[in-house]
């Protein structure tokens, strides 16, 4: 950073920064510290005292088959959400970019789902696939397919994946379209003069130029499916059937608030902290690279 003109005084800047620092300390750092502290204890059932167990909660978690299953569920879920939201978005963005007129209208139509909260998206998709009244499940029934995500874990997973990916298509579409429109026309024209047709140009010229955007979206979508899909899962499946859609964040909630197992829930929070930290570092490594080219 170059030398900037600054103002003198130290009490004014402290005063200016105080609101953010105080709120961060009270609602971010203290609770995070508490989570780490609590993760080392097991409270008794009445909450009167707690026993220090060191890393016992963590050992227990990693030997717990439900927790390990939740890791796998989260991995499967986030990979599927990322793919199901990025591929259609890329396709639509490529199509929209080909249009000279009308791409703005399509864009306006396609960004709607972004504004819809994950929990509302969950309700909409639940309604379509509801076993009693759902339109889609009814037509599937007519075709001879008996849809029942309440009992079938695979179908439940499919439904929460689609409901979570739906709103993200808008988001990814906007970023892909912006990236496509930033591809220099001269590069495309050069390829066209060399005789490359549209799809050939797409694979050999455009896609490599999109890769920074794609990587960025990959990380952002994984973060999204880890942490922001709680509403979808809570409204559609509540983690069931048989925990087949219990992702890690849902399990922190279920064990901490429903099961009242505070030590275990805190230990899970700490593990998630590491996951967020890792993802944030990856994201910033990427931004650093991008700044320097």
């Amino acid at each position, binding site marked *: 950073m170059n030398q900037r003109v600054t103002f003198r005084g130290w009490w*004014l800047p402290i005063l200016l920064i105080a609101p953010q620092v105080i709120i961060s300390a009270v609602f971010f750092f203290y609770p995070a510290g508490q989570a780490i502290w609590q993760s080392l204890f097991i409270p008794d059932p009445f909450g009167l005292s707690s026993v220090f167990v060191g890393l016992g909660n963590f050992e227990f978690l990693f030997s717990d088959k439900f927790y390990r299953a939740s890791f796998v569920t989260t991995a499967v879920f986030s990979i599927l959400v990322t793919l199901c939201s990025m591929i259609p978005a890329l396709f639509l963005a490529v199509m929209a970019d080909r249009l000279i007129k009308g791409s703005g209208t399509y864009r306006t139509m396609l960004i709607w789902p972004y504004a819809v909260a994950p929990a509302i998206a969950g309700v909409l998709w639940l309604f379509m696939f509801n076993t009693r009244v759902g339109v889609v499940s009814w037509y599937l029934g007519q075709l001879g397919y008996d849809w029942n995500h309440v009992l079938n874990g695979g179908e439940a997973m499919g439904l929460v994946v689609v409901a979570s990916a739906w709103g993200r298509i808008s988001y990814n579409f906007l970023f892909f379209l912006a990236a496509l429109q930033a591809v220099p026309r001269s590069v495309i024209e050069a390829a066209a003069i060399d005789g490359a047709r549209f799809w050939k140009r797409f694979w050999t010229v455009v896609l490599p130029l999109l890769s920074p955007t794609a990587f960025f979206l990959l990380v952002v979508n994984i973060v999204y499916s880890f*942490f922001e899909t709680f509403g979808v899962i809570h409204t559609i499946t509540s983690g069931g059937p048989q925990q087949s859609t219990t992702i890690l964040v849902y399990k922190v909630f279920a064990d901490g*608030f429903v099961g009242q197992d505070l030590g275990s829930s805190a230990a899970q929070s700490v593990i998630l902290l590491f996951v967020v930290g890792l993802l944030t570092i990856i994201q910033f490594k990427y931004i650093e690279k991008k700044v320097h080219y």
Partner: protein
Amino acid sequence: MANKINGMVEKRGSGLWLTHVFMVFGVLIIFFPIWLAFVASTVTQPEIVKPPMPLWPGDQLWENYSKALVSGINVPVSTMLVNSFVMAISIAVGKIIISLLSAFAIVYFRFPGRNFFFWMIFLTLMLPVEVRIVPTYEVVASFGMLNSYSGLIFPLIASATATFLFRQFFLTIPDELAEASRVDGASPMRFFWDIVLPMSRTNIAALFVILFIYGWNQYLWPLLITTEPEMNTIVMGIKQMFPSGDDVADWPVIMATSILAMIPPVIVVVGMQRLFIRGLVDSEK
């Protein structure tokens, strides 16, 4: 952008109508869930519970929406809408004010602890509410802020993203402006008020759009701390409208509520599309 020069690149002809077909098809698929919710909010309960439900709107729009808004199921939806507005606007405005001030302090002053505070704010990026729910809930409960607006708002109001965005922007404001106002003997706050704030207008507006939607769409946090139906926000309140046992849900009212819950953010996103896209790209990159 409107008149891209075509040059050698084919943009017309056989491929074009096919492109439109794909786009229309894509839009229809993406739109279908919203359409279906709208249709369901305009028909009667018997039409829905006897599948397949119609795919074209009925004539019960007024009945369903007024029933939802006036009586709702646990609490009138109008109450939940007010709660959502208070929460979303307070979070957006609060985050913007807090971040503007702290970014201004970080960019325009050298004070003891500056780096420490900077990293402290930076680290909050790694602490989404989802990973600290139980202890944060305990803090809020110990302050007696359960079922209150302050409990809904404060834990979500500190935003490292907004602070960084403003910091990046302030770094692009020419040094001469600060120099000039210092020579003129203007106080730092005068400079902030007269120069920095007016220059940040577009950034503030773009960020407002993003933060409003962030606040409006919160689910987990309101679910934890609002146990009284009167304090429910609309996004989390919908789940509470489903019956717990084997009873059939009141789908027309629930779907009318879903539509009501998405109207404000959709208006903000579609109406302020340019600002929204700008805010999105800026705040993520």
